[in-house]
């Protein structure tokens, strides 16, 4: 049944949310106008609060409606049809919610609502001017999902559009406008991953959090409170920096685990689009702290805090307007919202720039010239380096925008992103990393002490000496294991080690004072570890699946071409650097079982989600299914069992890289890696190609053998014994009927590794003969039971063979990648500690602009 009510309710809620946002913006503006900070026009304020509450309620209502559509499989709606399907588990239904553009806008809107409520509750004094900005942003964001056509202009794209209104050309709707599809087309399989349940909300919370300091900065400029906004802005920036940073790294981890480009970061425009604002946000945070503790850098803080939010808007424009076109594989589909996005971006750029310029002269500056012994100088340089790094990524990522802009002016431009993006970005970002690692160590050491030549030399001697020793040792070890050591790597290792040791030293010294103060040092330590992890895992990523067979198809370019993939025949071990690797079969995921189940144990049925057990399914000494039981399977993914045996130690481990053939998406084979984690390295493997499963196998001509029970024959290099002729049982999923006469041959075929039972079946039903052949996929063999000669006791079997199954595999070693992940956790922890410390701090009267060089300065 077509249910239009829920969609109408949802759409109505969108309109209410939109209108309420306009009302809230206007009334908050009126409430704050001509009033000093802290007081507001009471009646306007009441109206504004009411409007924002209505807005919030409407947003919740939109979310409930949309989730209801997905959860109840209401495929009459385009959103459910294109993002969900019947067999999707509940927790992935949550990911369906934000797979589409509209849903992700909704997620963003939702976080703004919650943050708005938090500001109304905790930042009373600032409510009216800050919330005016908030409501204004909500007005623009809700317009993106409005889905209303005014004067032939489409405003926003509604998530509540019916399928028949989306696919207006589909013939089925001409026949029956009330047609409802029975199943959806499903969630992109790459997104069926637990990280995709938590990564997008984290990232969008990070997006939303950048609005808070921005709104405070704007409110400060507007109300001429040019210093007071810093305190609340720091707290919110700390939360934002942590959430956005962790959100980005979650995305990186997901990419590492799920995509097959062989790493965690690909410099894809979509990734860059969030990396840029994060760098600027962190730089801005440093400027804010500089002002609060040392009364310098306020203008910088204004510029950076405002830029962060504008860059988030620019990122939204980049990823959602379709401007990236060929440049990115995973930007959202173009919904024709580019005009709206440009207006949104331009409105806030103009508002912010005009306000900032008009108040620029009144922003207090520090009179004091900074010297080399002022930590402020080094923190400031660090923030500058972050901004330069952001600038570099921005310049390159925007290349498609230049093309579009020049095209708009009528100039044909054919600029393309650098052909080797990784080399291009690394060239700059590596040096940014060097500077950050060095400055993070130096800045932390200097921040906590009074600095002059002597004290600085004293506190730096130990870390510097240890760094040099450590770097020398690292170089020796790298050489010892036969890896090259480029000069830039030496510099980065040294800087990274210094960052680690100097920050560890700072933490140790702060232990004696108050451990709570060390949040900054912990964060910086995390960053330095991350840099070392990136250097080791990316710089020394080692492809272990180099083709060593010596077989090369073309010798045209033998000299410098990497041949990174290796072909593995089923059950034949191949040498791969220190390992013997073998591919030993295809497996399915069976819900409720601890391990994957071999395809050979299962008969597929007409229902693709059900299979029948051919043999006992036993795992960890527990029998889960008996012969003939029906079990549920997840058919979309095939897991390829790959065994690694270390030739030196004799130890082995098993990986199950998965692949899925997805015809609906038109994307062919989607392969995801499997990763074996050791403390000091990961072994990362993914499937590159498998024999095309959509093509019928090429079987050889059937060769007949006449056998008696007990006879032995050679089949395709394996020998086989006909042990018995026995009645066939229904249990094997043959679909027998009463009165059928069914017998089967019982063969034992000896393969390379194990023996296989093969049971070709011979059925007589109503004097008609049926033959059900049996296949051993491992050996590329098929046997059929062709005839019976009861008088002589002889049986005829047909044998045909095919090419054996194979996979093409790429495998690499990622040394010390755990440094990256543990560094990320430390960074997050440091942010949290700083936040906690900030909360416990007694409220200080906002000091007038003065410079205080104090040894007891608080947290960085």
């Amino acid at each position: 049944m077509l249910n239009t009510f829920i969609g109408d309710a949802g759409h109505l809620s969108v309109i209410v949310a939109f209108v309420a946002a306009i009302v809230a913006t206007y009334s908050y503006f009126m409430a704050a106008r001509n009033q000093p900070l802290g007081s507001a026009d009471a009646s306007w304020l009441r109206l504004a609060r009411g409007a924002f509450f209505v807005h919030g309620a409407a947003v919740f209502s939109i979310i409930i409606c949309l989730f209801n559509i997905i959860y109840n499989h209401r495929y009459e709606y385009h959103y459910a049809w294109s993002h969900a399907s019947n067999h999707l588990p509940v927790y992935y239904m949550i990911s369906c919610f934000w797979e589409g553009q509209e849903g992700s806008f909704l997620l963003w809107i939702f976080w703004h609502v919650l943050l708005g409520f938090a500001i109304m509750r905790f930042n009373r004094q600032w409510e009216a001017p800050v919330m005016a900005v908030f409501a204004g942003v909500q007005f623009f964001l809700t317009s993106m999902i409005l889905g209303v056509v005014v004067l032939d202009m489409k405003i926003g794209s509604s998530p509540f559009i019916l399928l028949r209104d989306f696919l207006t050309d589909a013939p089925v709707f001409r026949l029956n406008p009330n047609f409802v599809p029975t199943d959806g087309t499903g969630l992109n399989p790459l997104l069926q991953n637990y990280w995709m349940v938590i990564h997008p909300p984290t990232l969008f919370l990070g997006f939303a959090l950048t609005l808070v300091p921005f709104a405070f900065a704007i409110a400060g400029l507007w109300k001429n409170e040019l210093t007071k906004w810093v305190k609340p802005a720091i707290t919110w920036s700390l939360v934002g920096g942590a959430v956005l940073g962790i959100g980005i790294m979650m995305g990186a981890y997901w990419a590492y685990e799920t995509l097959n480009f062989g790493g965690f970061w690909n410099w894809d425009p979509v990734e860059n689009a969030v990396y840029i604002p994060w760098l600027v946000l962190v730089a801005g945070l440093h400027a804010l702290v500089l002002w609060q503790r040392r009364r310098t850098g306020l203008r910088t803080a204004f510029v950076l805090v405002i830029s962060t939010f504008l860059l988030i808007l620019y990122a939204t424009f980049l990823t959602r307007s379709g401007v990236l076109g060929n440049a990115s594989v995973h930007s959202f589909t173009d919904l024709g919202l580019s005009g709206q996005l440009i207006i949104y971006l331009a409105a806030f750029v103009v508002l912010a720039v005009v306000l900032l310029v008009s108040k620029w002269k009144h922003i207090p500056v520090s009179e004091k010239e900074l010297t080399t012994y002022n930590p402020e100088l080094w923190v400031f340089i660090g923030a500058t380096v972050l901004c330069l790094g952001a600038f570099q990524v921005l310049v390159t990522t925007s290349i498609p925008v230049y093309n579009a802009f020049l095209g708009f002016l009528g100039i044909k431009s054919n600029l393309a992103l650098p052909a080797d993006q990784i080399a291009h970005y690394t060239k700059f970002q590596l040096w940014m990393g060097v500077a950050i690692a060095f400055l993070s160590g130096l800045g932390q050491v200097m921040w906590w002490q009074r600095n002059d030549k002597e004290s600085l030399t004293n506190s730096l001697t130990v870390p510097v000496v240890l760094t040099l020793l450590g770097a020398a040792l690292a170089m020796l070890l790298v050489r010892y294991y036969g890896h090259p050591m480029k000069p830039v790597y030496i510099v980065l290792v040294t800087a990274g080690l210094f960052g680690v040791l100097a920050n560890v030293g700072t933490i140790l010294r702060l232990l004696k004072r108050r451990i709570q103060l060390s949040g900054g040092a912990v964060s910086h330590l995390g960053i330095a570890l991350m840099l070392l992890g990136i250097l080791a895992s990316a710089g020394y990523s080692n492809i272990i699946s180099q083709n060593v067979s010596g077989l090369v198809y073309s010798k045209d370019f033998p000299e410098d071409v990497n041949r990174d993939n290796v072909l593995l025949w089923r059950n034949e071990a191949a040498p791969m650097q220190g390992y013997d690797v073998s591919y030993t079969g295809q497996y399915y995921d069976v819900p409720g079982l601890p391990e994957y189940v071999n395809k050979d144990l299962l008969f597929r049925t007409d229902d693709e989600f059900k299979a029948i057990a051919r043999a006992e399914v036993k795992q960890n000494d527990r029998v889960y299914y008996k012969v003939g039981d029906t079990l549920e399977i997840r058919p979309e993914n095939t897991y390829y069992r790959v065994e690694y045996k270390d030739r030196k130690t004799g130890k082995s481990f098993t990986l199950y890289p998965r692949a899925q053939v997805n015809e609906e998406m038109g994307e062919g084979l989607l392969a995801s890696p499997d990763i074996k984690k050791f403390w000091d390295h990961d072994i990362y493997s993914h499937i590159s190609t498998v024999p095309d499963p959509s093509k019928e196998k090429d079987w050889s001509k059937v060769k007949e053998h006449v056998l008696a029970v007990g006879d032995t024959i050679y089949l395709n290099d394996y020998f086989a014994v006909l042990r018995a002729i026995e009645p066939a049982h229904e249990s094997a999923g043959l679909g027998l009927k009463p009165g059928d006469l069914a017998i089967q041959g019982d063969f034992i075929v000896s393969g390379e590794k194990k023996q296989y039972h093969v049971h070709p079946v011979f059925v007589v039903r109503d004097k008609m003969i049926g033959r059900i052949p049996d296949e051993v996929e491992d050996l590329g063999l098929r046997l059929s039971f062709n005839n019976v000669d009861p008088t002589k006791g002889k049986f005829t079997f047909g044998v045909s063979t095919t090419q054996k199954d194979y996979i093409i595999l790429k495998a690499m070693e990622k040394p010390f990648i755990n440094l990256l992940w543990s560094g990320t956790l430390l960074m997050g922890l440091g942010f949290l500690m700083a936040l906690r410390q900030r909360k416990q701090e007694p409220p200080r009267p906002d000091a007038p602009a003065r410079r205080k060089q104090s040894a007891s300065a608080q947290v960085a």
Partner: protein
Amino acid sequence: MKKSHLLILTVIAIAIGILVTTAGDVSQYVSFKEARELAAEGNTTKVHVVGRLPRDTQKNIMGLEYNPTLDPNYFAFTLVDTNRIAQRVVYFNPKPQDFDKSEQVVITGAMRNDVFVADKILLKCPSKYVEKDIKGATAAR
């Protein structure tokens, strides 16, 4: 000169350096004719080429060469660029599984002798919404 001025000058210098280097690294969308000219001049910078795969009357792609059992890292095909110039392309990696379905192909690489050696292939598949039929649509009639 104050230190802050020095800092600003350094920043500007680095920013200009970034712009100049980026301008040098930027690649271009070119035709095969231009790619050949570049190679003939001895210029080995990598370029982007956009093209389509030639198909016979049965819509099968012509000229694909991939034989994994001989060499899994050798894939060759013919690409016809927007000016209808056909060029043999070699890709030293396995054949992307969805290659057969793609309508438009973007390759990066450079001409070497008389073949184009690609190191990246970006496939533009028919949009998710165009090719998809509605499942169960026939059953409902």
